[in-house]
């Protein structure tokens, strides 16, 4: 066979493998780590799962800021448990990502070097206690809307991780809403603090659901692989429709003068989102991008000696065990 012919059959073989692969996804079969998959599928999944993992890990920082200053023991244990859950979510997701043949070290490196992205919402500051309420209510609320469809995604390890994550998220949102409720039923100053937090977190939460459909580049491919079940705009509408009545119950005003119930469509109409702000934060110019990365990288570096010591101890113990076995 000529070289060209050889190449041709190679291409044909991978085309038919790819057809079989796509058919399996259409049939709702799960893809597992050792199965054949197109390189693009693997790369896209590494990117999305690791971005998701990074977001969980960096997401601990804005809330960690308030653990020592929680207003009561009840609030403190709840916040501590929530932040610990986010660490767990990060770990489930990193471990799912590693099944695609990338090492934890590479993933951390991508985060720490700024090569990998994480959700831009975590680059906003948490300046009052009410921010803990608004984050649980809105940010975890938007995260749930994003994540629930992923429980059915095509890549088995990701889907299984998402099922665990989604089970745990509901408490996050409820404890946040409860904080908002207490503040809204409190003094005038407390209620204003809640309103101020809503004012600051509302628009970034809407941005969390991603760029509008007309500029979102990965949507079609992601839909095919079930990495996405609904478009960004659909998810955003769902978030607004379910959140506005919750704000009404709190007696708070959503900071959007154009927000209006539309009898005809059965949805809320809403105002223009400032996408320029979104892209600025994504590009690293948000209020806390630098601070978040400094904290994250600093914690990792300060932990180096601990990780090394643990490894050295483990190796010593292993040698000791081997020598004892020899002596017997």
């Amino acid at each position, binding site marked *: 066979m000529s070289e060209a012919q050889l190449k041709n059959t190679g291409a044909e073989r991978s085309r038919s493998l790819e057809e079989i692969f796509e058919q399996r996804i259409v049939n709702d079969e799960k893809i597992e780590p050792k199965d054949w998959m197109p390189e693009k599928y693997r790369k896209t999944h590494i990117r999305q799962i690791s971005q998701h993992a990074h977001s969980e890990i960096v997401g601990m920082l804005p809330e960690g800021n308030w653990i020592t200053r929680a207003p009561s023991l009840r609030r403190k244990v709840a916040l501590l448990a929530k932040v610990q859950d986010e660490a767990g979510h990060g770990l489930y997701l990193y471990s799912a990502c590693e099944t695609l043949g990338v090492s*934890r070290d590479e993933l951390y490196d991508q985060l720490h070097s700024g090569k990998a992205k994480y959700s831009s919402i975590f680059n906003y500051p948490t300046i009052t206690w009410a921010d803990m309420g608004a984050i649980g209510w809105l940010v975890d609320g938007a995260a749930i809307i994003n994540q629930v469809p992923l429980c059915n995604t095509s890549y088995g390890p990701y889907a299984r991780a998402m099922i665990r994550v989604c089970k745990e998220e509901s408490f996050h949102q409820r404890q946040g809403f409860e904080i908002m409720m207490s503040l809204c039923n409190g003094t005038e100053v407390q209620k204003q603090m809640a309103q101020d937090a809503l004012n600051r977190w509302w628009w970034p939460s809407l941005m969390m659901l991603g760029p509008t459909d007309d500029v979102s580049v990965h949507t079609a491919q992601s839909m095919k692989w079930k990495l996405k079940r609904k478009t960004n705009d659909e998810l955003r509408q769902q978030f607004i429709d379910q959140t506005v009545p919750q704000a009404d119950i709190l007696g708070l005003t959503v900071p959007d003068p154009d927000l209006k119930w539309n009898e005809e469509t059965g949805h809320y109409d809403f105002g223009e989102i400032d996408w320029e702000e979104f892209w600025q934060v994504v590009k690293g110019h948000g209020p806390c991008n630098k601070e978040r990365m400094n904290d994250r990288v600093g914690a990792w570096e300060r932990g180096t000696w601990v990780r090394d010591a643990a490894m050295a101890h483990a190796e010593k113990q292993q040698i000791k065990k081997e020598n004892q076995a020899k002596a017997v």
Partner: protein
Amino acid sequence: MEKNWPLWEIFVRSKNGLEHRHFGSLHAADAEMALENARDVYTRRSEGVSIWVVESKNITASNPENNGEMFEPAQDKIYRHPTFYTLPDEIKHM
């Protein structure tokens, strides 16, 4: 950092009477730490009563590319299933 913590596979028995099931993986310096981390990562809400940890490198997995030779021979052995045998309808308890 000199050396990375190895990867461990975590298996959890959610309650007595059930088998251990694969829950995921994590990194730890040794088996003892893997157990402690598994407790914190995978059983924060009483999801388990027993944990096994196995260093991932010690697991040998079958290759899906060989699934044909591996699993297809069972497909034409339908006589291993009760429905292969025809019995009259009047027969009860069988």
